[in-house]
């Protein structure tokens, strides 16, 4: 392997006392990818990010960050991080805060002198550079935190709920920054429970529930509501050839259950059948199967699922976030 994956982990697990925060996390994030980590509050998203950044030691499992084992500072050399609870040394002024973090990245002073005004400008805080952070609003703190995360022109950026304190203008700023990072072949790991944000920005999403990835999807960007590549809801209207009376008792249920080989969540209400399939490729097989089972097919319509549909389906209604 010439360039290592930005993130590659296998079977990461974290147990706090008796609470399982992350059950079993295996994940590979490709270079240049905007990866969304979706899940309700308390699903283990932040714990997962902290394990990747070496802030939390996994109970079990292993992995690498930019090719270095988790916890090794070399892996974090070209990494930026905006924590969920962005609390900083508030007696520092905005520009001093960025200088501090530039020093921690061992950034040469002349580079820092150029980078800091650029970033203040990017996040719209140039007018507040001389103000102490204690006088910053929540949104301003999040913006300066974002500038801090981008200071080192990182190859991999972790953003943990980056828009929680931002107004719509700030949210757009975050989106633009993510888009810009993607264009420059940077990798972004976005923790969020805001579906709209993820839908617009991410290439791929993983759904995490009770500390485990329950599903991964690739998103298709483009005009209109971005949709998920792969997952389709298939609506079928069909009836036994020769009518219901000619169909032996239980035969229809067996035919319907047979559809499970192509998808999941198979449901049937008399002639209305629905199931979730992973792509269009299986549709001809499904049609052929039904015909071979002596079934008359009246409709077979694939519908793409929105992220929200998928979220509700996968994560369920127990999420209170």
């Amino acid at each position, binding site marked *: 392997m010439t360039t290592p994956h930005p993130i590659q982990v296998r079977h990461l697990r974290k147990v*706090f006392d008796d609470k399982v925060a992350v059950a079993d996390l295996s994940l590979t994030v490709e270079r240049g990818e905007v990866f969304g980590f979706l899940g309700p509050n308390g699903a283990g998203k932040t714990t997962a990010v902290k394990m990747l950044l070496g*802030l939390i030691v996994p109970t079990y499992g292993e992995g690498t960050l930019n090719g270095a084992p988790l916890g090794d500072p070399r892996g974090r050399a070209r990494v930026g*991080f905006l924590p969920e609870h962005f609390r900083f*040394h508030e007696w520092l002024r905005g520009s001093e805060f960025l200088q501090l973090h530039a*020093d921690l990245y061992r950034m040469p002073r002349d580079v820092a002198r150029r980078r800091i005004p650029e970033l203040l400008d990017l996040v719209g805080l140039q007018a507040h550079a001389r103000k102490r952070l204690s006088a910053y609003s929540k949104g301003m703190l999040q913006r300066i935190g974002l500038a801090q995360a981008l200071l080192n022109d990182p190859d991999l950026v972790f953003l943990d709920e980056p828009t929680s304190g931002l107004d719509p203008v700030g949210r757009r700023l975050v989106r633009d920054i993510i888009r810009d990072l993607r264009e420059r072949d940077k990798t972004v790991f976005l923790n969020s429970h805001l579906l709209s944000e993820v839908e617009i920005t991410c290439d791929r999403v993983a759904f995490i529930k009770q500390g485990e990835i329950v599903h991964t999807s690739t998103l298709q960007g483009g005009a209109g509501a971005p949709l998920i590549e792969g997952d389709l809801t298939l609506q079928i209207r069909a009836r036994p050839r020769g009518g219901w009376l000619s169909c032996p008792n239980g035969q229809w249920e067996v035919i319907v259950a047979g559809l499970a080989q192509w998808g999941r969540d198979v449901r049937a209400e008399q002639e209305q059948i629905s199931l979730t399939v992973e792509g269009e490729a299986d549709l001809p097989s499904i049609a052929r199967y039904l015909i071979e089972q002596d079934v008359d097919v009246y409709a077979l319509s694939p519908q793409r699922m929105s992220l929200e549909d998928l979220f509700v389906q996968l994560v369920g209604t127990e999420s209170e976030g």
Partner: protein
Amino acid sequence: MATWVIARLTLREALQRKIALGAVLLGIVFLAVYGAGLHFIRQDMTRGVQAPTALIANQLYNFLSLSGLYVVNFLFVMMAVLTSVDTIAGEMASGRIHTLASKPLRRWEILIGKWIGFVIMLTLYLLLMGGGVAGVARLVTGYRLPNLLRGLGLIWLNGILMLNVTMYGGTQLSALTNGVLVLAGFGIAFVGGWVEQIGSFLDSQAAVTIGILTSLLMPSEALWKRAAYEMRSLVVETTGFSPFNSGSSVPSALMIGYAALYALVALGLAVWSLERRDL
């Protein structure tokens, strides 16, 4: 180097939050009050009908200088504990440590950086206060404390010892719990020291043993007693009795070595504990 960046941050924080300014201003007030007191005592003494002999005056000035340093020792320890008690625990409780520890650095660099910052700050404080007391005494009375550097060195070690113990506690406990425990330890050592002192005067071996045991538990008072012993007057040296220590209960060089090792181990534990814990 990240250690130095954090050390500078710690020093700047002390300046910004006016800890340094407050300590210096009140320290100057303390020195002024102390100097004024000395001045009037001396004035009354030399004006009296029976002016004391040089030996008595010498003993009195020694006692007054050591009294001043006794307060400095106490203030220095308090300063060490109070300024550092929140430094690790506070960064962890607030989450500020997340942006620091996720940088390409080792956690020990954060802890040692802070430690260096505090050591610089505390050393300057001790030079101001300890040097100030000795200097004011010299200026007002002309008396010169014997072995001043050695004495101040032991007081310095005392403060560093308390700093290290506090920093270790800070990696495990909340600031409040840590502060209460460290000061309780200091209090136990203090009481144990006096039990030993009085026990030694009354020839009670049990009381001396209690004193030694508390010194092993927390050697802070032993360091002060040794410092006072180093700076003792001629009278104390001949009679073997002083308000600050008496002949047979002077902490040995071994105890001082133990205290230095204790401080080193506490710092090592602080590093080990921070490296391992979840942030």
